[in-house]
């Protein structure tokens, strides 16, 4: 697929390189001639100098024939504008943008950006996974990130222990997929399945309910 990346910095440059390795045709637009020169040295003639919010520059980068545009500049304002300009001027199929500020994720979403990647959420997700107490592991985003598959390890002295699944007031939309016991045995997530110490629960969770689910399952007595 032909992909236009706007912003060739900390995110854009490695992204370009990995997409090229995956066999995609990539072109990078950046306002900084030094960034463009360095991309050209490392990856070939796949970058040009231009403003993220200039329709002319987007055109020069080949936005008219791109399957997707990915906005990775440091400026949330530019990331939104470049996606919207690409959508209205080139009818681009898919726009993807990084939102550095958490409050901009919702705004981007409601302003027509097809996929919003929240920088803060990514860092938080990784940190949460790395924390040793009651681990929450985000296994996989599902359905355009509106849901996610998560694994939650229950603490030994949690309030959930000894209860059945139906007794837990799970957040709306949450589906328990599998329960894995401390011994590594799996048990089916029937409504009368009893939660035991150090069970690991695999769940399909609406992304905005995962924190609530985690709290419910790991609350201590």
């Amino acid at each position, binding site marked *: 697929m032909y992909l236009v990346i706007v912003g060739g910095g900390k995110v854009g440059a490695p992204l370009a390189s990995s997409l090229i390795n995956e066999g995609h045709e990539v072109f990078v637009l950046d306002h900084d001639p030094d960034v463009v020169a360095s991309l050209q040295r490392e990856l070939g003639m796949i970058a040009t100098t231009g403003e993220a919010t200039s329709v002319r520059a987007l055109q020069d980068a080949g936005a008219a024939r791109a399957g997707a545009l990915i906005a990775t500049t440091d400026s949330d304002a530019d990331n*939104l504008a470049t996606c919207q300009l690409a959508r209205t001027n080139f009818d681009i199929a898919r726009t993807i943008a990084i939102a550095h500020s958490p409050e901009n994720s919702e*705004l981007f979403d409601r*302003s027509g950006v097809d996929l919003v990647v929240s920088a803060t959420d990514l860092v938080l997700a990784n940190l949460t996974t790395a924390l040793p107490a009651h681990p929450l592991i985000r296994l996989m985003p599902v359905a355009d990130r509106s849901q996610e598959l998560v694994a939650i390890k229950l603490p030994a002295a949690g309030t959930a222990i000894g209860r059945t699944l139906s007794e837990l007031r799970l957040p709306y939309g949450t589906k328990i997929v599998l329960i894995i016991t401390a011994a590594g045995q799996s048990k089916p997530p029937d409504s009368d399945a009893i939660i035991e110490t150090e069970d690991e629960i695999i769940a399909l969770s609406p992304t905005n309910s995962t924190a609530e689910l985690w709290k419910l399952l790991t609350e201590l007595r």
Partner: protein
Amino acid sequence: MNVIIVGAGNIGSSLTSKLSDLGHRITVIERNSKAVSLVPRGRVDSGAITVIHRDGSTGAGMLEGGISDADVFIAATGKDSLNGLAAQRAKTIFGVEKVMAVVADDDTRILYESLGISTINKATLASDRLVSVLIEEA
């Protein structure tokens, strides 16, 4: 009317003065405390104009500027895309009826107009003024 103006540069300040002349209550949100020298001092002292030093493109800055009671929101910083982002936040998130953005680039102006944001063009403003001066003199 309650009007919020983000940015106290040349355009922001001149809009502030004019709308204040017409009797509207203006809140100017300007991040840089040194950049409000063009806002009429007397009106600030009398309380007709409120100046807040925050980032007016953020939800927190807008809330402190009284966005919930605003009738008009005008984004007048020097950066088109920031004005567009702020205007879209005011409209989409806070539901302000009348939202305007100062825009220099023509393609960007067309985009924002299509999103229901009124645009104020720096160049057009200047030429309008020139035309009205010429007409007055003729």
